[in-house]
C-alpha cells in the first residue's frame, strides 16, 4: 500500500452528453477528457496547461472528486474514491474525509465568498468542521495567525471585514486560507492567479508555495499561461502536463518541457508566451495551420492535433500516436518515435 501515490487517475474519461434539444435531433457527446492517466504524489506540484476547452478544468475536478469519470478510476491512497462514495469499498475511509482532503480554489474568489459574512465567520466554518473541539477564542487565534501568515495584517482588522471590502488579491488569500484550514492533501488551483494583475501573480504563487511547505499539501495548478506554470512548477519541483482536446500531449519536468519541447503543440504554447527579451522580434507568423480548436464533439481522427499541427503528415491523420513514456516524461507524438512510419509519410496539404 505504501507505494500508492496520493492521487492516481487511471485511463480516466469524462464524456458529457448534450441532450437532444429543439435545434438538434441527435444527442451529442463532448469528450472533455479522454483516456488519461496521471499521478500526484505527496507535496507534489502538477500543472496543467492548454487552451480554453482543452479539458484541464474537467480533469482537475475529476482528480479531486468533484466530477465523476465516465470511465477509468480515480484512487486516493490506493482507494477508488467512487467506490468509497457508493459504499462499495472496504477502505477505512469516508467520502467526507476524501472530499475534505481534496480542496479547490477558483479563478474568481469574489464569487466563492459569501458576501454577507465577515472573513472571521467565513474562516470559522472549515475549522469547526475539521476541529470541532476547538473553543471560540482558540478558533479566532488560529484564524488570526493564519491571516498574518498570508500577509493580511493586522489580522483582526481584516477578519472583521466583508469580502467586498477586500481587493482581488486579498480575497484570493482568504480563499486559499479557507482551503488550507481543511488540512487538505491536494489543492486544485483552477486559474487561481489569472484574474490578478500581472504584478501580483508572482507574490500569490510565492505564498502558495510557502504554505505548501507549512501545510504539507500538493497542488494541481491549472493555467493557460506557460510562464506562470513554469514559475509555479519549477519552484515546487513538479511537472507540467500539456493538454489538448482532452488528452495529454506531453508531460515532463518544467524546465525540460519548456527548454526542449517534444510535442509541436508544446512549441506552439511556447510561441504564445510573451518574451520580453524578444520585444524587437515580434512573432511573425501563426505557427499553426488553424487558429481555432476543433469541436470536441467531433475530435479529429488520428492525432487530435493534426488539423492544426505545422508538422502534420498523412500518417497523423490516420493513426493515433500513443503516449511514449520516457524517464520522467511522456510525449504523444510520432516525431518522438524515430522509427515511426510518420517519417516516410507525405506532409498534409494546407487545408486538411
Amino acid at each position, binding site marked *: 500500500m505504501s507505494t500508492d501515490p496520493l492521487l492516481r487517475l487511471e485511463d480516466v474519461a469524462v464524456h458529457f452528453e448534450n441532450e437532444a434539444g429543439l435545434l438538434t435531433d441527435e444527442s451529442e457527446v463532448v469528450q472533455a477528457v479522454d483516456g488519461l492517466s496521471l499521478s500526484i504524489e505527496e507535496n507534489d506540484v502538477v500543472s496543467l496547461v492548454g487552451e480554453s476547452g482543452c479539458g484541464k478544468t474537467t480533469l482537475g475536478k475529476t482528480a479531486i472528486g468533484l466530477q465523476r469519470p465516465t470511465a477509468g478510476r480515480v484512487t486516493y491512497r490506493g482507494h477508488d474514491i467512487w467506490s468509497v462514495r457508493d459504499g462499495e469499498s472496504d477502505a477505512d475511509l469516508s467520502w467526507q474525509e476524501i472530499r475534505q482532503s481534496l480542496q479547490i480554489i477558483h479563478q474568481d474568489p469574489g464569487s466563492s465568498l459569501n458576501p454577507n459574512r465577515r472573513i472571521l465567520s467565513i474562516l470559522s466554518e472549515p475549522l469547526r468542521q475539521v476541529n470541532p473541539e476547538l473553543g471560540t477564542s482558540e478558533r479566532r487565534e488560529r484564524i488570526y495567525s493564519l491571516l498574518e501568515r498570508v500577509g493580511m495584517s493586522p489580522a483582526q482588522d481584516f477578519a472583521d471585514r466583508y469580502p467586498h471590502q477586500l481587493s*482581488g488579491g486579498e480575497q484570493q488569500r482568504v480563499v486559499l486560507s479557507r482551503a488550507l484550514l481543511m488540512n487538505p492533501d491536494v489543492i486544485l488551483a483552477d486559474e487561481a492567479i489569472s484574474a490578478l494583475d500581472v504584478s*501580483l*501573480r*508572482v507574490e500569490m504563487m510565492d505564498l502558495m508555495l510557502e504554505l505548501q511547505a507549512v501545510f504539507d499539501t500538493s497542488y494541481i495548478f491549472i493555467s493557460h499561461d506557460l510562464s506562470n506554470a513554469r514559475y509555479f512548477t519549477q519552484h515546487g519541483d513538479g511537472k507540467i502536463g500539456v493538454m489538448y482536446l482532452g488528452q495529454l500531449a506531453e508531460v515532463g519536468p518544467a524546465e525540460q518541457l519548456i527548454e526542449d519541447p517534444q510535442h509541436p503543440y508544446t512549441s506552439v504554447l511556447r510561441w504564445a508566451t510573451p*518574451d520580453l527579451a*524578444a*520585444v524587437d522580434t515580434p512573432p511573425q507568423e*501563426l505557427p499553426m495551420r488553424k487558429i481555432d*480548436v476543433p469541436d470536441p464533439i467531433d475530435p479529429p481522427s488520428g492525432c487530435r492535433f493534426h488539423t492544426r499541427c505545422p508538422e502534420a503528415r498523412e500518417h497523423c491523420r490516420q493513426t493515433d500516436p500513443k503516449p511514449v513514456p520516457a524517464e520522467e516524461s511522456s510525449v504523444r507524438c510520432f516525431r518522438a518515435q524515430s522509427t515511426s512510419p510518420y517519417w516516410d509519410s507525405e506532409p498534409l496539404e494546407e487545408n486538411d
Partner: protein
Amino acid sequence: MSISSDVLNEPQDRDAIIRMDDVSVTYDSGDSYVLDDVSLAIERNEIIGIVGESGSGKSMLASSLLDAVPDPGQLSGSVEYRPVQDQNVEVLALEDSELRALRWEEISMVFQGAMSSFNPTMKIKEHFIETLEAHNAPVETGLNRAHELLEDLYLKPGRVLGSYPHELSGGMQQRALIALSLVLEPDVLVMDEPTAALDLLMQQSILLLLRELREKYDLTMVFITHDLPLVASLADRLAVMYAFELVELGPASEVINTPTHPYTRALLNATPNLNAPLSEMRPVKGKSPAPINVPSGCSYHPRCPLDTEECRTNHPPADPVTPEHTAACFHWEEARTEISLNYAETGTNDGDWR
C-alpha cells in the same frame, strides 16, 4: 547621444491623430482624481500600448478619448481629433449627435468580454446590419466589408454571421467583435483589454491579426492592458500608467530594453518570464494608491527604493530620456543602475552606461 533640440521642443509637430492635453477626470466635486493631467499625442498609424494595473486609470483614459466618462465624473482638458493633418476636431466640445457619429465612424472601441457587447438574442449578422443602419451606411456594401474583415480574422464569414453569439467560442466572439468595430471604416481602434478573457494562445493569435489589420486598413490602434509583456511585441510605443498618471512613455523596444521609471522596472521584474532566472522574479512591494489617497509629490514614492525628500514634496515632470522617451522621475538615471532587471538589459551590463 545627440538630442535634436527642435524635436525636443516641438514634439507636437509629429503627425498626431489624437492629442490629449492636460486631461483630468475627477469625482466628488474635484476631490478625487481618476485621471490626473494626462497629455499624450497618439500618432497616425501607430499601435500604442497603454499599460497599468487595475485602478491605475487606464480605462478612464480610453473613455476620455471619446468623451464617454461615466457619470458623475468630470472631464477637463482637451482632446483633439485630427482626421487629416491640419484639421482639428475638439472632441469634448461635440454635440451628442456628432459624438455618436465620431464613436463608430472615426474612433471605434472594443471592450473585454464580447459576450456582454453582443445581444444574445440576435445573430451576428443582425448586429452588423443594426450598426450599419444606425449610421445610415449602405447595408450591402457594409456586409461585403464584414465578410472581408471576418476572413481577415480567420473566421468563416457565412458560419459566423449566421450564428448566435453563444454558438461561437470566446476567441471567435472577440474576433467577430473586432470585425464589427471596423465595419464603418474607422481610422482609430481603441481596445480596452480586448483579449484578457481569452487563453494566451488565442491572445497572441489575435495580436498577430491586429498587426495585419493595421497594415491593411491603415489603422491607428490604442491597446489598453494590464499585461505589459503581452502588448510589448505588438505596440510601437508603450505608455505606462501609475496612480492615474503617465509615468513613462517611449518606443516599445526602449521601454522594455532600457526601462527607466522605477515603477516600470519593478513591474517588469514582477512578471513571470520564460527566460528569466526564477530567483530574480519578485513582486512589486506595497500597494497602488486609491483615488482619494494619492501621495504628495511623486505618487510612487512610498513604494520606491530611490525616494528622497524631493520626491515627497515635488511632482516630477516628464523628463526626456531620449528624444522619444520620457520618464516622470527625478532619479531615472540612478534607477537604471540601482534597480537591476531580471532579464538581459541592453547597454547597462558592464556599467559603462553611466
